[in-house]
C-alpha cells in the first residue's frame, strides 16, 4: 500500500493505493506550514479503512522548497567554490542574481584553480591545500552549505568529488552540493541550480524531518519518498541532499497520474484549474523536459524541469464581451461567491459552459440572459486558446490523444483540433496525488562523449551506468533498473563527432514489488 500526497498552492491532494488500485482519495486545503495539511491528509486516509493498514511508502510532492526560495525564507548561509581558474572569472558566481536573493544567502564566493576542457583534460589541476584553506575560511565565516562547481564536471566529476572529500574532512557538519549531480552543461545555469540547492539545505532537513514525524505520529513505519520534478522519486536521505530536484514536481505528478489513469504513454495532458491551464506532453509516460533555461525565483537554471505551458484559462477566468476577451483575471477560489451561476455578478468561463449545457453547476437559470452569440464566441475563443497551447507542445503535426484533468475540464468539449481522442479519466481531479503514488525512483546522467574514441553503444552504456548509480543512491533497487529515455544531441564546431547523451533510468522501491 502506498500513500501519494501532492501539495499544491491551494490544495493538498492525497490518495491511498494498493498496487494499481485506488482505495481512497482526500482533498484538503494546503496549510501555511505545509506539514499540517499533510498530517490531515494522512489521518483522513488511514481513517478511511476500518482495519489497520500497512502503508509501505508515503510519497510527497511538495512546494516547500519553491516557497522557501520565493519567500527568501530559512536559506542557509552559502559558500560557493568554483573550480575554474584561469577560466571563467569574468563572470563570477551570482553575477545576474536579483540583489535581495544574493543578500539572503550571504554567498561567500571562491574561484579556485581547476576545471576541465570539454574532452576531460584539466584546465588546471586542483590545489588541495588551497581548498583546505578556503574551507577553514568559510567555516569561520559561518557558512552552512557549500556549492561546488567545476567547469565541465559532467564530463568527469573527480575534481568536484575530491573537493567535497576535503570539505567533509575539514568540516564534517558542512552540507555539500556538487554541480555534476544537479545540472547540465551550461556553467552559470548549473552553478545557479547548485547554489540554490545548497541554500535549501536547512529547509530540506526540517521539511523531511517534519514529514517523517507526521508519519511516525500516526503509528506508521512507512518509508518516505519525495517527488522529483522529472516525475520520479528520491528517498528521504537523497531529498535532504538534493532539495532543488523537488521543485515544480506538481505539474509532473499531474501528468504522470494522467498517464496512469488512462494507460496512455504518449499524449498531451491539460490540467485545467481555477485560474490557469497547465499543458504538457507525455513521451513514454514522462513529461517532455524543457530545453531552455528555466527561471526559478529570478535565477536562470538548467535542470530537468517539465516543459509546461501555462495559459490564463481556468474555471474562474473572467469573460468580457464586446470585444470578447477571456481572462487573464480570474475569480479563482471565489468562484462560488462571484460567478453568475452562484448568484454573483461576474461572468466567468464556468457560466459560459453552464449556459452552453456543458456542465451542470450552480443554477442554470441565472445564466439564461447571456446571449447565444456571446456564448458561442466565448466557447470559440476558449477552444482556440486550448488548441493553440496544445499545438505548441506537440512534437509534430500528427494527431495525438489529449487527456483533460483538473476541476475545470468541462470548459473544453471533445472537438479539439489536433487530437486523435479526448479523454477525461475518472479521478482526474487527483491525478497529481496518483502520479506521486505510482512513481518509481529515478536517476539521470548527462555527459559529452567523443564518438571517435568510443562507439555509440559504449557512450550510452557509460551514461547509463552513471544514471543507474544515481538512481540506486536515491534508493532504487539495482535489480529493477530500466532506461526510460535516451537523448542524443550532436555538438557543433567540435572535432571527432562529439555528442551529448542524456540518459534517464527508473527503478523500483526495494521493499515493494
Amino acid at each position, binding site marked *: 500500500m502506498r500513500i501519494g500526497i501532492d501539495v499544491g498552492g491551494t490544495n493538498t491532494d492525497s490518495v491511498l493505493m494498493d498496487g494499481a488500485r485506488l482505495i481512497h482519495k482526500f482533498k484538503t486545503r494546503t496549510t501555511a506550514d505545509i506539514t499540517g495539511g499533510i498530517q490531515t491528509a494522512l489521518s483522513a486516509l488511514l481513517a478511511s479503512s476500518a482495519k489497520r493498514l500497512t502503508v509501505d511508502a508515503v510519497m510527497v510532492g511538495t512546494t516547500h522548497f519553491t516557497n522557501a526560495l520565493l519567500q527568501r525564507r530559512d536559506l542557509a548561509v552559502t559558500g560557493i567554490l568554483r573550480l575554474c581558474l584561469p*577560466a571563467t572569472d569574468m563572470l563570477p558566481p551570482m553575477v545576474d542574481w536579483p540583489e535581495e536573493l544574493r543578500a539572503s544567502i550571504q554567498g561567500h564566493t571562491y574561484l579556485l584553480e581547476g576545471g576541465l576542457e570539454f574532452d576531460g583534460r584539466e*584546465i588546471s589541476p586542483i590545489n588541495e591545500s588551497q581548498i583546505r584553506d578556503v574551507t577553514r575560511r568559510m567555516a569561520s565565516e559561518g557558512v552552512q552549505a557549500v556549492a561546488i562547481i567545476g567547469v*565541465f564536471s559532467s564530463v568527469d566529476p573527480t575534481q568536484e568529488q575530491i573537493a567535497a572529500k576535503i570539505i567533509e574532512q575539514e568540516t564534517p557538519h558542512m552540507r555539500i552540493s556538487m554541480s555534476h549531480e544537479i545540472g547540465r552543461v551550461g556553467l*552559470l545555469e548549473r552553478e545557479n541550480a547548485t547554489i540554490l540547492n545548497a541554500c535549501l539545505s536547512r529547509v530540506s532537513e526540517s521539511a523531511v524531518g517534519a514529514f517523517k514525524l507526521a508519519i511516525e505520529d500516526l503509528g506508521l513505519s512507512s518509508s518516505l519518498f519525495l517527488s522529483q520534478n522529472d516525475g520520479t522519486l528520491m528517498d528521504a536521505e537523497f531529498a535532504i541532499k538534493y532539495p532543488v530536484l523537488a521543485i515544480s514536481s506538481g505539474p509532473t505528478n499531474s501528468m504522470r497520474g494522467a498517464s496512469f489513469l488512462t494507460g496512455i504513454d504518449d499524449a498531451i495532458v491539460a490540467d485545467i484549474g481555477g485560474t490557469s491551464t497547465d499543458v504538457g506532453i507525455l513521451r513514454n509516460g514522462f513529461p517532455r523536459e524543457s*530545453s531552455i*533555461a528555466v527561471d526559478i525565483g529570478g535565477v536562470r537554471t538548467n535542470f530537468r524541469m517539465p516543459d509546461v505551458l501555462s495559459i490564463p484559462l481556468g474555471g474562474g477566468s473572467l469573460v468580457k464581451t464586446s470585444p470578447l476577451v477571456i481572462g487573464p483575471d480570474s475569480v479563482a477560489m471565489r468562484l462560488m461567491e462571484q460567478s453568475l451561476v452562484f448568484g454573483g455578478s461576474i461572468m466567468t468561463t464556468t457560466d459560459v459552459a453552464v449556459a452552453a449545457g456543458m456542465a451542470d453547476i450552480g443554477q442554470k437559470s441565472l445564466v439564461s440572459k447571456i446571449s447565444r452569440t456571446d456564448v458561442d464566441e466565448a466557447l470559440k475563443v476558449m477552444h482556440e486558446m486550448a488548441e493553440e497551447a496544445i499545438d505548441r*507542445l506537440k512534437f509534430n503535426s500528427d494527431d495525438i490523444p489529449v487527456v483533460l484533468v483538473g476541476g475545470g475540464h468541462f470548459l473544453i468539449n471533445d472537438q479539439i483540433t489536433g487530437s486523435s481522442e479526448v479523454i477525461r479519466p475518472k479521478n482526474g481531479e487527483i491525478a497529481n496525488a496518483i502520479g506521486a503514488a505510482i512513481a518509481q525512483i529515478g536517476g539521470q546522467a548527462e555527459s559529452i562523449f567523443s564518438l571517435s574514441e568510443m562507439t555509440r553503444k559504449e557512450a550510452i552504456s557509460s551514461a547509463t551506468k552513471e544514471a543507474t548509480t544515481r538512481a540506486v543512491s536515491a534508493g532504487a533497487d539495482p535489480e529493477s533498473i530500466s532506461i526510460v529515455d535516451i537523448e542524443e544531441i550532436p555538438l557543433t564546431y567540435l572535432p571527432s563527432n562529439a555528442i551529448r547523451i542524456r540518459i534517464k533510468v527508473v527503478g523500483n522501491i526495494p521493499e515493494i514489488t
Partner: protein
Amino acid sequence: MWQVKEEDLASISIGAGILGTGGGGNPYIGMLRAREMIRRYGPVEVLSSDELGEDDKIVCVGGIGAPTVGIEKIRGKQSYDALIALENHLGIKATALISNEIGGSNSLEPLIPASISGLPVIDADGMGRAFPEFHMKTFFVYGVPYVPMVLADEKGNIAVIPQALTGKWVERIARAITIQMGSVACYALAPMTAQQVRNTAVQNSLTLSKKLGDSVRKANQTKSDPVQAILEVNPGRVLFEGKISGIQRKTTQGFARGNVTIDGSGKFSDTVMEIEFQNENLIARLDDEIVCVVPDLISIVDSEKGDPITTELLRYGFRVTVLGFPAPDLWKTAKGLQVVGPSCFGYDVDYIPLELG
C-alpha cells in the same frame, strides 16, 4: 560618435540576433560579459569610419570555437590578450577595434578589449550578418590581409599564424589550434587602415543592431507590430508567416545542418516554406520556389514578439515570421559571391538578389 552604455546591450543583442540569421551563438553570455566590462570601466565609445584618420590602426577581434563549450568555459579577456600579443608581434599600437561579425555575440566581443584598453570601437563589421567560417569576411574579399592572426586562450597560450596560403587555410589552422586550446579562444587580426575600413567593412552595423533592438522592444511595450517596426529600421521583406511543422537536424563535419518546414498562415495560408541551414539560414523556398538565398539574410523571428530565434532553438509549433533582408553590397559582387555565394554552401543555384516589395 556615440557610447554603448549598459542599457543599450539588450537592444544590441536583439538586433545582432536578427542579423545573425539563425547563427551567432547564445547572446546571453556575450551580453553579461560586455555588461561586466561597462560596469567596471564605463561606457564604450563608438566611432563611425568617417571619424578615422590616416594614422589609425584598426584591429579586428572576435571569438572562435564551439558555442556549446562557450556556455561552459565562459570567455574572459582573451580578445584583449590576443590584441596585446598582436601589437607586440608587429611592434604597433592599435587605435581602434572592430567586430568581425555583427550577427550574434561576436557583435559585442570588441567591447571587452575596448573597455580594458580604453580604445573606441568602430561602427562597422566584417560580415553584416553571421557566417560559419572565419574567411567569410568582407575585409579579405577586398584585399585586406588575413594574416598575421593571433589566437589567445584563457590559460596564457598565444599562437601566431604569420603566413597562410588563403583565408580558408587560416580557417583550417585556426580551428585546429582552437580545438587544442579547448574549443574556446579569441583572435586579433592584422590592423587595417582607415581607408581599408571605409572601403571593405560593412558600415553602421552596430548602430543598426541597436536600432533594430530598440524598435522590437518599443513595439513590445506599446503592443504594436514588431515585424513592421523591424522593417521600418532595416528595409526588407516578409518572406513568410506561419507555424513550424517540422525540423530535421544533422551534425556533419562539426556544423549543424538541417532544414525547417513552416506551414503558412494569414496571407500565406495553404503554402509551405522550407529553409535549409548550416548554423545560419541559407536558402528559403516557398512552395519549392527559391525566394531568398545566401548571402541575402534570412531571419526567423517570433511572430508575436519579434525576438530572433537561432537554429538551435527552432521547435515544432513555434509561430514565426521569416524576414528577408538584402545582403550588404560588398557581398553581391562577383568577388563576394565567390566566397559566400550559394555554391560555397553546396547549392548549385544562381544568386538572385532579394526583391523588395
